[in-house]
């Protein structure tokens, strides 16, 4: 009995609740005779779409700055890269590549500045990261409206100033990864290209965490005093973690956008950090500990929940948007839970 309790404690109550809830939803989906194949395709697609944004949490947690609530800063770098690549009139894979290169460059600069900020506000990184992200998003709103872009793909067709709220990527890099090596198995779609790209990046992050710098960064994160004593520059390690997280945020939003088919400007990135935070927490990460496995498990569980909940709740309650409410409760509830566990874990 005590072993069972220990197992549950290790595994985490929240994860058990989420898995039970998910099983319940699957049973309901079968009972309602929903299209299992399209559900599975949906889960695979949505998990791939969001995986990199969740992966961006790993370096920031490992370097000791906690969950990166300011992920929207990285997201905006990626969006800016995409906007510039559209303005250059590029298409297809080349547009995606240029957007990534530009996005990464912006993210390195932005991540460095953000890292400097986080080093001055130790122990309050998550709160200040949130508001740093919020203010940058609303500051960029002014940029989108005032920036002198001329490309007809992005500005309003008749009158109206500034860029559109959502820019269609149909003529640029819509689904470049999703359609690359798309496998069809009995009606189940597996976007191998997308997953290849994600696995490559997961592998890169994993390899980095095994490298000398990566191990130093993790030491700085888990035990700053010990790290300091053994000659590691804790502050610069935290900056490296923040830069990596911001870069992954920029790359992540480009993967998200190519899969979604639209680039979302203005206030859309405001709350984009929260689902990524919730996903990695559902995967079993804490504010101090995170691994690639947490990213993969968490993103699949969270996205599966969202994908299956939508048709199930719509079948039960056609009016209203119950699945959206469920999403708000679960994702924010899990973040609150994690925050109350910080002190208890020590």
């Amino acid at each position, binding site marked *: 009995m005590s072993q069972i309790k220990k197992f549950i404690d290790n595994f985490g109550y929240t994860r058990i609740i989420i898995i039970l809830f998910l099983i319940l939803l699957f049973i309901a989906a079968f009972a309602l005779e929903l299209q299992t194949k399209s559900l599975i395709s949906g889960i695979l697609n949505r998990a791939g779409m969001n995986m990199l944004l969740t992966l961006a949490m790993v370096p920031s947690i490992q370097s000791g700055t906690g969950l990166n609530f300011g992920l929207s800063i990285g997201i905006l770098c990626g969006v800016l890269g995409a906007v510039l690549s559209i303005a250059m009139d590029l298409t297809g894979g080349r547009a995606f590549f240029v957007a990534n290169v530009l996005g990464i460059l912006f993210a390195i600069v932005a991540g460095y500045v953000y890292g400097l900020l986080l080093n001055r506000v130790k122990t309050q990184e998550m709160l200040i990261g949130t508001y740093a992200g919020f203010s940058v998003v609303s500051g960029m709103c*002014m940029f989108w409206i005032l920036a002198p872009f001329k490309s007809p793909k992005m500005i309003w067709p008749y009158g109206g100033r500034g860029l559109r709220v959502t820019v269609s990527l149909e003529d640029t890099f819509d689904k470049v990864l999703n359609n690359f090596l798309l496998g069809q198995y009995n009606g189940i779609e597996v976007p191998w290209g997308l997953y290849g790209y994600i696995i490559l990046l997961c592998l890169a992050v994993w390899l980095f965490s095994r490298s000398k710098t990566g191990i130093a960064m993790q030491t700085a994160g888990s035990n700053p005093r010990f790290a300091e004593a053994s000659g590691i520059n804790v502050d610069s390690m935290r900056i490296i973690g923040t830069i990596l997280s911001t870069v992954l945020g920029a790359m992540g939003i480009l993967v998200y956008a190519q899969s979604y088919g639209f680039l979302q400007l203005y206030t859309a990135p405001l709350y984009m950090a929260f689902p990524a935070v919730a996903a990695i927490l559902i995967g079993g990460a804490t504010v101090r500990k995170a691994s690639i496995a947490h990213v993969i498990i968490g993103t699949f569980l969270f996205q599966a929940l969202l994908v299956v909940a939508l048709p199930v709740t719509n079948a039960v309650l056609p009016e209203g948007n119950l699945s959206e409410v469920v999403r708000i409760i679960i994702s924010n509830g899990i973040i609150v839970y994690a925050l109350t566990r910080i002190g208890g874990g020590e």
Partner: protein
Amino acid sequence: MSLLQNIKKGIRNNIVPVVFTILCLVGAIVAQASPFFLLSSVVVRLARNLLLVFSLIIPVVSGLGLNFGIVLGAMAAQIALVAVTHWNITGLGGFVVAAILSVPLSILFGWLTGKVLNKAKGNEMITSMMLGFFANGLYQLLFLFILGGVIPMVNEAIMLPSGIGIKNTVSLRGIKYALDDVIKISYGSLTIPILTFAVIALFALAIKFLLQTKLGQELRCVGQDMNIAATSGIDVDKMRIIAVIMSTVLAAWGQLIHLQNIGILQTYGSHEQVGLFAVASILIGGASVTKATIGQAVLGTFLFHLLFIISPMAGQQLVGEPQVGEYFRAFVAYGVIGVSLALHAWQKQQAQKDKLKQEI
């Protein structure tokens, strides 16, 4: 010390309000707004928002930081308002019933918030913010599915056509200006709701008085140092819960005053920005995470809402796009919170470093 040095010191200590005063002045000149128009708009907004901003003071004094969880108080008020509208109790009576009804709800919400925040010591602010988002989900669950779905409720005026859930906007015609109209002075477009301001002033005095009592002393002691408070026999957790409960109840009443003036309840939106705007207001007034006074709350609310009125007008004049001004004020609200929280955290870190150096 010479006068000049005094002024210099005064400006340095109140840099945030000074900067925002200058910003407002420049904005007013650019926008070419008439001072009378600005005054009358700002008076309305002061009456609407002051109590909500006051509700932040007690948790700051008690060391919990800025309570973004006042959103839960606003939710309690809105639940009470929907009930009052449903029962069709109108006028000042309806307002008073809503005020009474919101008390047990906000005490419950405040107690729960306090319990959660006690488990997240050192991270109260972000936890209270996330708790607000979480509670918003439960609030939507209540208003979209439980009312009419689980709890039987029939009312065509405020419910969705399907009979389950509350409409997006609920007209509060019954209690619009219920408090404002009792005693008021009008002069052109300027209307001063005397009774509303009297009620607000009463709460300001009550907060001041409370902080002088034994309970207030204990709250302040907890705010200064939890360990010292605990060793001197104060039940720290209980004090913190009391502080949050008082804040939540005040926020509920503040939201009632706010909504009786506006007269329309955006069922799923009225409460969302309450925490953000109140926190930004009090910070603009020169408050910090550990220090907040009634004066700072009043000054900050005045400056913040002045800027709120001016920035779309200035945006229109400068670039011919009022939208820019609206984004600008969102930027200011988020930015001012971010910057002042960052400054505070930085100062604290610096102080700790100095202390360490001294010990060595």
